[in-house]
């Protein structure tokens, strides 16, 4: 263990009590995420991948087990604003311009006006949205809106970036492009990223570690480490190494499903 672990989960379980009885969203999850990793959670819907991300972000609380984020309990980490969170939808506030949407977390966290202006300019530049500062969200395409939400998450300069299927609603062409941009961003900023997806190519292309999950109860069935270079391009998706990893992910997903029927 050379790098410090950013996320550490031990025997983590989460049970939702519903009218139809308990739902085991997470069951005995063990996970370690190191500083600088790009970790993807992949699995079919209902496997608890979003729930696990929300537990890390303290948007849900675990029923059992232990989890630490930056060496703290999740609620402490949240109060210390240790992470940036990107949701499935851009969740931009429609009454704010693009720059004021990026400014939102900065306003809440009490940054000075000068500091805000500098960070807005820097992060909009980072997601290639220079020149759109004064536009309103509805004037931008879905892909651009999601890039604004990434800039917003990056604006507070968190070491940890949590992303919940951020490109799920976008078409494949836009998604490829954003994947490439996200990878470049990760290479440049050296952040730790935890990324939820249900796309195998996306997970294999982006990640240093792929966490394969399975539903009922939600659990981890495989963790695959990839060894692609940091400056990889979309071309690697045709290499035998890529296909081998993708195959192992697919096998894991199939195995998880066999409990169902």
């Amino acid at each position, binding site marked *: 263990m050379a790098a410090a672990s950013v996320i550490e989960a031990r025997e983590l379980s989460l049970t939702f009590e519903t009218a139809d009885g308990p739902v085991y969203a997470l069951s005995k999850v063990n996970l370690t995420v190191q500083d600088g990793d790009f970790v993807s959670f992949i699995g079919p819907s209902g496997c608890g991948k979003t729930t696990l991300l929300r537990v890390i972000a303290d948007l849900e609380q675990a029923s059992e087990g232990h989890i630490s984020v930056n060496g703290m309990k999740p609620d402490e980490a949240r109060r210390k*604003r240790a992470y940036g969170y990107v*949701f499935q939808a851009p969740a931009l506030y429609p009454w704010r311009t693009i720059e004021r949407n990026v400014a939102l977390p900065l306003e809440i966290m009490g940054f000075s006006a000068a500091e805000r202006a500098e960070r807005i300019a820097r992060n909009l530049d980072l997601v290639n949205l220079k020149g759109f500062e004064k536009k309103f969200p509805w004037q931008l395409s879905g892909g651009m809106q999601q890039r604004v939400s990434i800039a917003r998450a990056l604006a507070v300069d968190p070491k940890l970036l949590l992303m919940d299927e951020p490109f799920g609603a976008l078409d494949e062409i836009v998604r490829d492009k954003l994947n490439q941009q996200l990878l470049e961003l990760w290479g440049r900023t050296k952040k730790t990223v935890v990324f939820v997806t249900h796309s195998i190519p996306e997970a294999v292309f982006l990640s240093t570690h792929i966490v394969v999950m399975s539903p009922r109860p939600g659990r981890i069935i495989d963790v695959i480490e990839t060894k692609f270079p940091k400056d990889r391009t979309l071309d690697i998706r045709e290499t035998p190494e890529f296909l081998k990893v993708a195959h192992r992910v697919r096998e894991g997903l199939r195995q998880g499903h066999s409990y169902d029927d």
Partner: protein
Amino acid sequence: MTLAATRSRPSLAGAFAHGSTLPVTIIVLIVIVVWYLAAIPMNRVLSEPLIAAAGGGLGNTLSISWSLPRPVLPAPHQVLIELWNTVFIVAPWRPKSLLYHCWVTLSSTLLGFILGTLLGVGLAIAIVHVKALSRSLMPWIIASQTIPILAIAPMVIVVLGSIGLTGLLPKSLISMYLCFFPVTIGMVKGLASPDPMQLDLMRTYNASTAQVLWKLRWPAALPFLFASLKVAIAIALVGAIVGELPTGAQAGIGARLLNGSYYGQTQQIWAALVAAAVMSSGLVWLVGFIERRVALAMGGRP
């Protein structure tokens, strides 16, 4: 070419037929015709001896029915003459001027509207933030609106008068009582309208309750607020008029109505009603105008 020319420059008659001008004109004409016709049988009791004395006939029937000094139903032109005389002929600061009475009613309407809006918004903020209040307060708020305002208005005026509060404030309180309700209902809905994702976002920033209120709930609630304000300002005017009825008919649209009915001055009643309607639509238009400006500033699509 000719097609393009006709398209780009529509004729006046075309605009008249395709716009809303034609239907609006037709409806207004129908109302005026029905009004004139109705004045004939409704004024019969008063007009019959005069018509007989004049020798009968259609011409006499019409001219007498539409020009009685104290008709049951005045003809539209009689109301217009009354309006002209009391608005443009008399100086606006004289008690004979309709504008003077409009101002008296308008001032208590606006004060009541502001108080009612503040109360309504305050209640809504409390209800949205404290779960127990939505259960405990809401039934009282709803019950308050089931009491007929005409029944309690005199009590309010008398009780407040006995502790030395007279004039503008008691009337405004009746306006407030009526108009806080739509504001509360609209704002409870509006302040709770942000979706879970927008609220989760605030949670990831560890935003305080006040920050969530001012940066998320309040702007999200503004469309709801304006819808409520349009209802509120119209019924604030009704409240102010009702509040003027039991004050001994000193001033205001309500006093004009009461005076008119004491002395059989139906033109005066109708003129006051027209003035109330004009004020009411003006106020609603004003709220709508501000709403459009605010929506534009908040990134609304033009």
